[in-house]
């Protein structure tokens, strides 16, 4: 379990990272931030980059700030710092709750928000949250800077649409400021903090009469990429979210998923678990929304 040999460069700036990536030619060069996904892959020789470009010392890639109706988190911000942030908890509480399911203290202290998104593990909670909220990432490369919607970012398990010459620089998460907004996040794993067997994220807004006027539903771990369930969202919009309505509108969810079987759970178990997590998350979000009048 030792990585294949590689060259290492500690980059001092975003420009240096872009230059090193642009000059790669046929050589595989990979960015390393927290390393909590990449180092295990390299230990198992599932990844053998010729060069690692360390971005941990680039301050411009760190920090949490509000930009209009979005919360912007620098790609190299540690998961532990985001989880501890009162600003995040107030603006995008769904992310705070998702992060409490991300790994363990020792991995959150190194792992970054951008690293999780760029590695695109199908069970990753940060990708699920970004997908559910309709967030975006920004990236910079030889062709300049661009924004990529979460729906366009994830291409398959561990695969994104980021170019080999591109550095993911930040994630932008919409802030829902309407009253009677609530969120829910539920996950099942072998241990708390382990890879999800299935997870669900929900954020919704109710009107004064308790009718759902806006709902986003996402599922993780049960398809190659985090999935937004827009059909189910449509079926619940304009409805009062009593348990019977939620149950009926979500019944089709297992058929919308494309889960893998592995030694932790079979595909069928993942379908059923995902359904249960969505229903639970909707109820949690609904009850919180009712209290946030």
């Amino acid at each position: 379990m030792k990585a294949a040999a590689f060259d290492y460069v500690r980059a001092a700036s975003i420009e240096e990272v872009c230059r090193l990536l642009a000059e790669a030619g046929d050589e595989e060069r990979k960015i390393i931030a927290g390393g909590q996904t990449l180092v295990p892959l390299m230990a198992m020789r599932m990844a053998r980059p010729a060069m690692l470009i360390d971005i941990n010392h680039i301050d411009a890639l760190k920090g949490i700030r509000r930009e209009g109706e979005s919360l912007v988190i620098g790609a190299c911000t540690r998961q532990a710092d985001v989880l501890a942030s009162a600003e995040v908890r107030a603006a995008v509480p769904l992310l705070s709750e998702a992060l409490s399911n991300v790994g363990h203290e020792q991995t959150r202290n190194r792992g970054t928000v951008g690293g999780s998104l760029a590695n695109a593990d199908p069970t990753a909670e940060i990708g699920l949250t970004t997908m559910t909220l309709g967030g975006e990432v920004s990236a910079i490369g030889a062709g300049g800077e661009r924004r990529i919607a979460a729906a366009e970012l994830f291409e398959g398990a561990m695969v994104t649409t980021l170019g080999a010459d591109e550095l993911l620089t930040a994630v932008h998460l919409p802030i829902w400021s309407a009253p009677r907004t609530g969120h829910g996040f539920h996950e099942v794993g072998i241990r708390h903090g382990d890879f999800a067997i299935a997870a669900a994220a929900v954020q919704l807004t109710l009107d004064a009469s308790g009718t759902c006027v806006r709902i986003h539903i996402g599922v993780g771990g049960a398809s190659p990429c985090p999935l937004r369930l827009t059909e189910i969202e449509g079926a619940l919009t304009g409805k009062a979210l009593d348990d019977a309505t939620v149950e009926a509108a979500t019944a089709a969810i297992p058929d919308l998923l494309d889960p893998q079987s592995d030694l932790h759970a079979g595909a069928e178990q993942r379908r059923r678990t995902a359904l249960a997590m969505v229903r639970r998350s909707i109820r949690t979000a609904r009850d919180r929304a009712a209290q946030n009048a």
Partner: protein
Amino acid sequence: MSDHDISLTVNGRRMTGRAEARTTLVDFLRDHLGLTGTHVGCEHGVCGACSVIMDGRPIRSCLVYAVMADGAEIRTVEGLEGADGSLSPLQDAFWETHAMQCGYCTPGMLIAATALLERNPDPSEEEIRDAIGGNLCRCTGYVQIVEAVQIAAKSMREAE
């Protein structure tokens, strides 16, 4: 493939070595610096045996390349004892409750629990279990480990 001079402050002492980029921090500590107290288990970030404190925070030293830690301050299990060689209150409590069987997970457990008690002197049982949640004990001696952390927390509060 690049070799690097690496300088760390380990348990308050400046230590240097030279290693390939692919050398993990745990291998550097054990094989280059001779600090074999930190155990290496799964080598891919699952078991927690290699936990050390890096710049004030517990991390898994098998998931950090030593070159990435160049310039960092590291605390390992060797740094937990007092200047006179006496056991820390936590180590003492592990002794008292027999919070180890084979001892393989012990350094990682001690590091995780030390980091917990430094930021939270009065943790609940749930907080203790969460703090050691990333550390596997395959003898399944978790009950005594949790008990040891509770005893240590109490004795450290009383000594304040």
